[in-house]
């Protein structure tokens, strides 16, 4: 699903005009904000960065032929996050608490000890857990100033807008139906001031 194949499900944005010499500037910007750190250790934080659309393991943008196609810049936003399976984690933690209580001849595990057991188990399990990986594709028409992002959920879109701003130094403005009538401000204003139509017969 995305830019090169499959169905399109996108949120559209307006972007500013790119600056002079944008090829070099944007190559460096994409390199600086490329996806770099794989979650190989004990890290629950989400990691975000740019990758090529061709393969989520390709994170170099030095070859512009891999991401710039005439007026279109095309790349992907990769998000990695390690999430522990809640029920399994809870079950293991309960076993550890029971073992600690037995070993220490105590009926209950003090909360401080439980927190320590929890942290230790979390680190242990995170080491063995692979991250969930998502890639959302981006296509940017640099000539016409629009960007499409292949996801319509609010959280990934917020993440995308922040990363885009950090990378290219410009704020994206989400497409609004009024953009369709932007060349006719009177019509746009009339729509804004229109009230909802009531379709029920008895309301007449």
């Amino acid at each position, binding site marked *: 699903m995305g*830019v*090169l*194949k499959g*169905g*399109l*499900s*996108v*949120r*559209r944005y*307006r972007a*500013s005009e790119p600056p002079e010499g944008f090829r070099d500037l944007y190559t460096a910007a994409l390199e600086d904000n490329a996806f770099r750190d794989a979650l190989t250790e004990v890290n629950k934080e989400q990691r975000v960065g740019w990758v090529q659309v*061709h393969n989520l393991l390709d994170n170099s943008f030095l070859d512009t032929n891999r991401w710039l*196609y*005439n007026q*279109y810049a*095309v790349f992907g936003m990769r998000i990695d996050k390690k999430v522990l399976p809640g029920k399994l984690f809870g079950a293991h933690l309960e076993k550890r608490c029971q073992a600690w209580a037995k070993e220490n001849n105590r009926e209950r595990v003090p909360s401080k000890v439980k927190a320590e057991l929890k942290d230790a188990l979390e680190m242990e399990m995170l080491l063995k857990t692979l991250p969930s990986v998502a890639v959302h594709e981006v*296509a940017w*028409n640099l000539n016409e*100033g629009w960007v*499409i992002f292949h996801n*319509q959920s609010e959280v990934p879109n917020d993440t995308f807008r922040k990363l885009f701003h950090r990378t290219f130094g410009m704020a994206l*403005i*989400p*497409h*609004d*139906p*009024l*953009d*369709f*009538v*932007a060349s*006719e401000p009177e*019509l*746009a204003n*009339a*729509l*804004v001031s*229109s*009230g*909802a*139509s*009531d*379709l*029920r*017969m008895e309301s*007449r």
Partner: protein
Amino acid sequence: MSGHEENEGAPPHVAGEFFLWLWYQSETGQGRVDFGEEGGTVEYWVDDRISFRAVGEDKVSAIMTGDNPSLTPEAHAALAGGKVIRDVRLALRREDREYTVTLKAPRIEIAAAKLPALVKSGDEGEVLYERMFLYEELHFILGGLFRAFAAARCSEEWRERTLPDLRRWVAAGPGAAGALDAEAEAS
């Protein structure tokens, strides 16, 4: 940069009324817009899904799927009960290119758009240029349809004729479009 800034968006009812207008137009045999010499003619009709929400809520409260969902009594009943359209799956044809797309309120976003494949094989660049051309054409078509809706919605005729017609159409139920046309002609 042109157009409206982020905080001056369309009111929430606009997208739902646009979808309703498309549905009504297509069911009453007017599902066709002429974009002039350069734009050509676009035909459209409701495909296989309509969903509704209650006013003031975002979650779906009723969904009709399958063949001709717009012709079901349930779809008309949802409107008659005061629900508004949340998303609609539309088919669009321009020249020999046919698209199907789900339009989602309130932004009129494009979802699950099926683009006509013109280039069967080719390098990555060719495929990309084609798909971007088709996406832009789809966006262009939607823009044209929305402008036609906006002009109708903001005209005097909306209150005097279109809205009463819409109310009668909703109340009469599916398949009543022909009868309503005849009634209108007779009067």
